[in-house]
Structures are given as structure tokens and as C-alpha cells.
């Protein structure tokens, strides 16, 4: 995350932002009058106050240069004490920068593309043909549901700060109140606040979407939706605030008072660990699919699976490079490391299969690519290209062992390997980031963390892993049993046998005509 520390301009934001949010028409009228009174050069009011000071040409140029560097446009307006003289501003303050904004809107669309249809097809291809639509329905349902949660409370609980807590955000942005096209400088100088909110929404959508993989083919649609509502409030919103909130408990890069000085660039803990570990617990509580281990449950379409994988890979550029929250050098580095890790892991997984099983399979390449993308996620903006290739090798070897050996040994029915790839990969990535993060890749590591990076960062990462894992596991145990008690988790055996598509959604994926 590219955050901006030590500034409080969100609270004293530019006047027009606040005035566009009147509670009544009367207030609106007053606000409009106030707007013109403040900003119209032709206002002929009696001069109660002196006119605001005009910025110098140097200050105006400095504001534009800040745009090029994704830096603070008010930097050159400050006096020696660090204060901005009352009324002094330039045209580059309080507005989004077109380039950074364009990249973030593109990135938001790319991250949505990861779920719809990337993840839906990746998972959809891996289930049996009688259940392909159930996976698509779950991805679509989660997209709509989480968007409503995000608009109403979620965004504020993650990226607000009115609670003054390092564990949960605030209430100031409930119903996206005050989230306008002007930047929220707590998080980005040049990206519209509403674009930032939509970008982060896409992460909130894909995270519960990942859980679907472990419980595929045997959980009721309504039960999944109810579980997701509870899980978002208990696990995702607090965790995302802790890791990415400007005053978050585990935000080591930007919060000098962070309890755990960990780093997570694009969501190794928040997205992949939380969903992956929760998925394991949920699939254990849910039980195995009928016939698991006895009947053939092979993927019904490796073609769809591969198409989905390609979409995930492409979308992941928005996920990782977009997490720089700007089109800057950190984004460029994340773009590069993402490519290297994914490609390396895909090739290495295929190679392992070729050596030990004589076939390099499509599912092997796909698993490696996704594994590489998962493991590079927390590291993308913090490591260099060599680190990314090292991560790519680990990202193939370790998840390979988990999905082939560990799963077979313990016999849990993690249907599509959400645990083996996302939980294991997310945990591995968080730890490797602790060893491979370097100041050279990201100058932001040289401030609050300058004594930690390269020394004990991996210990901080371990603490973050422990907290994420504990919260995910404990919360999922409780929430799963609540849902089980209220509406049950599984469809009837007959429905499961016939398939979820025709019974739960009234449609079939492939109609013979």
C-alpha cells in the first residue's frame, strides 16, 4: 500500500468537498452561497477578511512536480514549521492526478476481472459439470453482496479512522458519505477517494470468493451468503484495517505506532491467508463431498480452468501493481516482480510434474501460475527481480507438496485446493517478504522500518502470520457453527447427488439440444 503518513488533510479537506454533501436543501443553499462567497473572485462582499495569499510560480510548479513523483502537492506551500498559511493553495491541491487516477480505475477493473469471470472460470472448470453454475452463482452473489456491505459499512470500517482504533476503522465514511472524487490524502495524494474505495472493494470481493474453492459442490447457496456476511464483519474488515488502515495495528510501513511492524504490499495476509485458512476450517466443519475418495471427481473442463487462470494472471497486475495506489515506480516494480514470480512458478510446477510424473499437466501450469501470484502478492512492491524469481521457485515447490502429499495424508476435502494454494502460499509469501524485502525496491521501507528491514522483519512477519491465522481460524469455527445452527450448511444428499445447478439455481450449465 502506498500510504501517506503524517498528514491530516482529509479532515481539513478542500471546502467544495464538504459543501457538496448537504443534509437538507436549506443547508445546500447555504453551502452553495458559501462556495461562491469563498471562491468567486467577483464576490463583492464587504472585505471582512484579507484576500488569500497567492501561490508563487515556484509553488505552483512544485505542485505539478509532485504529481510526477506521486508526492504531496502541498509540500512547497508549507512554512518552516510545516504549516500552510491560511488560504494558500494551488490548482493541483485537492484534485486527482489524471495519470494516477486512470491507472487506479484500470486496476480496479482488472481486480474485478479476477473474480468475474477469472476466478469463476478457474474454479468453475475444476468442478464436475453438474455444479459449474453453482460456482458462477457464488462468485456473482458474493460480488453483489460484498459491494452492498462495502458501500454501507465496510469501506468505513477499513479505511476510516474515527474510532481511533488500530483494530477497526471508523464510521465517518458509512454509506460512502464524503467519499468524493477528491483524493483522501491519508492514502493517496493523486487518486480520487471514490476510485480508491472502488479499487479496495474489488479486493473485498475476491477474498470471500476464494473460500468458495474449498467448499465447492456441497454447500447451500444461502448458507454461503450468510457466512460471507458474518465473515466480512468479523474477519475481513478488521484485518484489512489492521494491515492497510493508516493507523492499523500491523501497518508497519506507514504507522510508526504499529503494534506489529509487518508489511503486506497487496494482501498476502489480508486476502490469501485469511481466505485460505478460513476455507480449510469451513471445509472441515462442512465435511467431505459424498463419494469423495471413491468416485471420480475430475475437473469437467480444463479449458475453462486455463482460461480463468489467464484472466487471473492478467487481473493480478491490477491487484499488485495497482497496490502502489499510483502509476509510479513502485507500481512498475510490482508489475515486474509479479510477472517474474508467476511465470517462474508456472514453469517450475510443470517441471516438477514432468520429472516425477512424466507429464507436465495444464492443471499443474495453472496451479503454479496462481501459486506464484499468491506468494508474490505481499512482496510485490518490496522485493527486486531476483527476489521475485526466488519467490517463484518456492511458490511452486511448497504448494505442490501441500496439494499432492499433505492433502492426501490427512484426507481433508479441500475441493479446489484453496488451502493448499492460497493459505499455504499467502503464509509462505508473508514470511519470504520478511527475508527478501529491500530498501532498493521501495524507499518507503527506509523510514519507519529502517532498523527492521533486512534484520528482524521476518519476526514481525511471523507475528502478523500468527495474528491473521488465529483470527481467521477462530472466527470461522464460531461463524460456521452459527450458520449451521440457523439455516444449516449442506443441501440434502439427493440435491448433492443430482448437482447444485439444477436444484439450487434452476439451470444447467450444458443443455443438450
Amino acid at each position, binding site marked *: 500500500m502506498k500510504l501517506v503518513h503524517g498528514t491530516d488533510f482529509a479532515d481539513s479537506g478542500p471546502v467544495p468537498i464538504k459543501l457538496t454533501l448537504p443534509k437538507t436543501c436549506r443547508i445546500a443553499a447555504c453551502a452553495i452561497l458559501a462556495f461562491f462567497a469563498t471562491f468567486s473572485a467577483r464576490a463583492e462582499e464587504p472585505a471582512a477578511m484579507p484576500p488569500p495569499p497567492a501561490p508563487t510560480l515556484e509553488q505552483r510548479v512544485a505542485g505539478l512536480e509532485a504529481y510526477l513523483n506521486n508526492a504531496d502537492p502541498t509540500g512547497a506551500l508549507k512554512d518552516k514549521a510545516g504549516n500552510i498559511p491560511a488560504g494558500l493553495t494551488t490548482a493541483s491541491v485537492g484534485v486527482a492526478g489524471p495519470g494516477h487516477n486512470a491507472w487506479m480505475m484500470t486496476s480496479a477493473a482488472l481486480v474485478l476481472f479476477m473474480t468475474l469471470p477469472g476466478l469463476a472460470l478457474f474454479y468453475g472448470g475444476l468442478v464436475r459439470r453438474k455444479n459449474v453454475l453453482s460456482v458462477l452463482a457464488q462468485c456473482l452473489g458474493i460480488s453483489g453482496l460484498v459491494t452492498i456491505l462495502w458501500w454501507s459499512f465496510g469501506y468505513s470500517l477499513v479505511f476510516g479512522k474515527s474510532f481511533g482504533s488500530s483494530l477497526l476503522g471508523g464510521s465517518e465514511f458509512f454509506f460512502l458519505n464524503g467519499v468524493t472524487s477528491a483524493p483522501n490524502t491519508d492514502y493517496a495524494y493523486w487518486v480520487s477517494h471514490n476510485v480508491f474505495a472502488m479499487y479496495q472493494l474489488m479486493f473485498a470481493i475476491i477474498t470471500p470468493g476464494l473460500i468458495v474453492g474449498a467448499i465447492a459442490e456441497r454447500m447451500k447457496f444461502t448458507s454461503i451468503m450468510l457466512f460471507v456476511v458474518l465473515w466480512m464483519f468479523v474477519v475481513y474488515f478488521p484485518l484489512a484495517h489492521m494491515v492497510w488502515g493508516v493507523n492499523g495495528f500491523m501497518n508497519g510501513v506507514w504507522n510508526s505506532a504499529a503494534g506489529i511492524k509487518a508489511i503486506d504490499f497487496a494482501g498476502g495476509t489480508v486476502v490469501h491467508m485469511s481466505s485460505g485458512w478460513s476455507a480449510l476450517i469451513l471445509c472441515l466443519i462442512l465435511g467431505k463431498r459424498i463419494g469423495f475418495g471413491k468416485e471420480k*471427481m*475430475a475437473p469437467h473442463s480444463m479449458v475453462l480452468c486455463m482460461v480463468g487462470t489467464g484472466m487471473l494472471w492478467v487481473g493480478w497486475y491490477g491487484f499488485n501493481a495497482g497496490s502502489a495506489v499510483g502509476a509510479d515506480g513502485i507500481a512498475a516494480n510490482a508489475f515486474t516482480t509479479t510477472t517474474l514470480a508467476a511465470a517462474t512458478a508456472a514453469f517450475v510446477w510443470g517441471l516438477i510434474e514432468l520429472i516425477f510424473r512424466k507429464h507436465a499437466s495444464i492443471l499443474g501450469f495453472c496451479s503454479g501460475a496462481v501459486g506464484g501470484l499468491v506468494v508474490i502478492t505481499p512482496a510485490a512492491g518490496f522485493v527486486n527481480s531476483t527476489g521475485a524469481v526466488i519467490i517463484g521457485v518456492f511458490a511452486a515447490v511448497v504448494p505442490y507438496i501441500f496439494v499432492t502429499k499433505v492433502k*492426501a495424508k490427512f484426507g481433508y476435502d479441500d475441493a479446489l*485446493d484453496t488451502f493448499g494454494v492460497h493459505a499455504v502460499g499467502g503464509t509462505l509469501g508473508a514470511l519470504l517478504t520478511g527475508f527478501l524485502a529491500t530498501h532498493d525496491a521501495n524507499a518507503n521501507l527506509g523510514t519507519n522500518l529502517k532498523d527492521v528491514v533486512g534484520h528482524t522483519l521476518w519476526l514481525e512477519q511471523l507475528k502478523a502470520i500468527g495474528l491473521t491465522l488465529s483470527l481467521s481460524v477462530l472466527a470461522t469455527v464460531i461463524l460456521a457453527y452459527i450458520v449451521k445452527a440457523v439455516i444449516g450448511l449442506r443441501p440434502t444428499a439427493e440435491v448433492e447427488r443430482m448437482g447444485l445447478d439444477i436444484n439450487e439455481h434452476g439451470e444447467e450449465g450444458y443443455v443438450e439440444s
Partner: protein
Amino acid sequence: MKLIIAIIKPFKLEEVKTALSEIGVEGMTVTEVKGFGRQKGHTEIYRGSEYTVDFLPKVKVEIVVTDALVPKVIEAVVKAAKTGKIGDGKVFVVPVEETVRIRTDERGESAV
């Protein structure tokens, strides 16, 4: 009249069809089928899950011919479908009591 049923490898269908056309066979019925014989099935591995596939895809060709043509048909099918490896398939010959051409109501060998 005899019904000749040939179970062959799918990729050999075109060669068998050509060989039969060359000896004057004017019609056949082709079905995609699954089954197993001595070749058995094969295994598929998806990540950690290994599945044995018992039924392999084959093509079933059904031809009704006059008795005189039977040896030539068998010879043509066997020659065209043979790879020499396990799983090449089988040919069955079954007697046919009657044949009727629906359009003209012709019966017997002239309807074949």
C-alpha cells in the same frame, strides 16, 4: 446377410471408411462408444487426486452386407484399423434375418 460390428480406435475411422468404400460398401452406421477390453483404462492425475478411467473412447461401425461380401469387409476393416498395439478393437459378425428399404418397401439382399 450379415451385420458386421467393428469396434475400432477412433482415429482409424477415416481409414476404415475409405477401405470399405473401395470394396463397394455403400453404407454404414457409426457410433461413439466407451468400453474396455484387455487394454484396460488409464489413470488421470489432477494435482493430488488420481482417477482410474476404465472406459476408453472407441468407435463402433455397423455394416450390413450380403454374405458374399463378408470376407472382403472383414479383411478391409482389419487391415485398415490395425496398429499392432493393444486396444485395436474387434470385429463381430452376426446373421441378419431381414432387411427392408423403407422408401420402396424392397426386402432381402436387394435392400442392403
